[in-house]
């Protein structure tokens, strides 16, 4: 049997299991409608019942990184006399969301099974 089958490549370790969570939530929320940074932070807060909150100033670094990757696109719009940058998900962003959501679901199920004491054996 080839070594690769006997010893499958392990999953990526999750040294910080919150890593990727801001991206996941941003990509999910922006599928509903375009939003600007402040709106996004408030939406995350309200939809998670204040359990998860992204640093108010930090959200833009996440948005800009996703935009550089092509997962988001932005456009400037005038709303109520103020110029705002609205973000929307791209096709690549949807794929990225599915990957992140899949990883997160697998991870939470694994953690839940440990918490509940279930065994895979």
């Amino acid at each position: 049997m080839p070594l690769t089958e006997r010893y499958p490549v392990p999953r990526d370790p999750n040294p910080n299991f919150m890593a990727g969570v801001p991206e996941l939530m941003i990509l999910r929320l922006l599928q509903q409608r375009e939003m600007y940074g402040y709106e996004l932070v408030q939406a995350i807060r309200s939809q998670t019942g204040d359990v998860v909150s992204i640093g108010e100033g930090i959200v833009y670094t996440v948005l800009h990184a996703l935009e550089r990757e092509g997962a988001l696109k932005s456009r400037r719009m005038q709303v109520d006399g103020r110029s705002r940058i609205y973000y929307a998900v791209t096709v690549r962003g949807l794929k990225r969301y599915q990957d992140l959501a899949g990883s997160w679901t697998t991870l939470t199920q694994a953690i839940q099974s440990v918490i509940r004491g279930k065994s895979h054996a």
Partner: protein
Amino acid sequence: MLEHSLEKVREGLLQKGIAPRHVNRYVAELHDHMADLVARECASGLDMREAQAKARAILGTDAQLVRAVIDRGVPRSLAAKAPWAVFGILPVTVMIVLFMLLAFGSMSFFLPYRALSGAAIPEYVRAVGTTITIVGSYAIGPLLAAACIAIALRQRLSSGWVWAGLAFIALASGPFGVHINFVQPAGGMTGGIRGSVIQTVYEQGRIDLGTTLVTIAVRIVVLFALSALAYRFLKQRAEELPHASA
């Protein structure tokens, strides 16, 4: 307060070499976000001063906001990544290209008039020749030096490459320049329109080597001294601004 509260973040990012376009956008969005926070806090009953202080605190500290950008690997500016290219290679390359464009442009423009001399040369042709000589001999070097200084100040760069760039520009623009000469027929020599790309001083129709070398040396020293003084003065002024100590 609102306008200046994020200037330390801007300075911190520029000093870390982050490209100015990324810095400007980040700070502009933070500014908008802070305005929304201030409006919310005011609506909840705080006075403007308190609302601004609270909004600034919610946004994150200067260090956190700078760190967040660095940790995300936001692109650094080319001048920060490769100062040798921006201040070393680029100005000299641009200078050579501009000299060539001016020289070839002049050749094609003056070709129909090259045998004319004296009053036979139309006035507008003389004006074009004088303009090309001024631009080609006295404007390109200083403009490139000014561009280098502007890039260095805008991106808060204090690299030795800035000084090197100013020296390269002075060295390259000292001996070179596009000259259009309207030569009068004299001493058996035919007149006409002549062009050259090297600074040369003529004495009775012949190149005066000594004066030419002195002229070139003076041009190099004057341009370097003026651009160095301007850079030093403007850099000092920028550093004295209250928000420059991020």
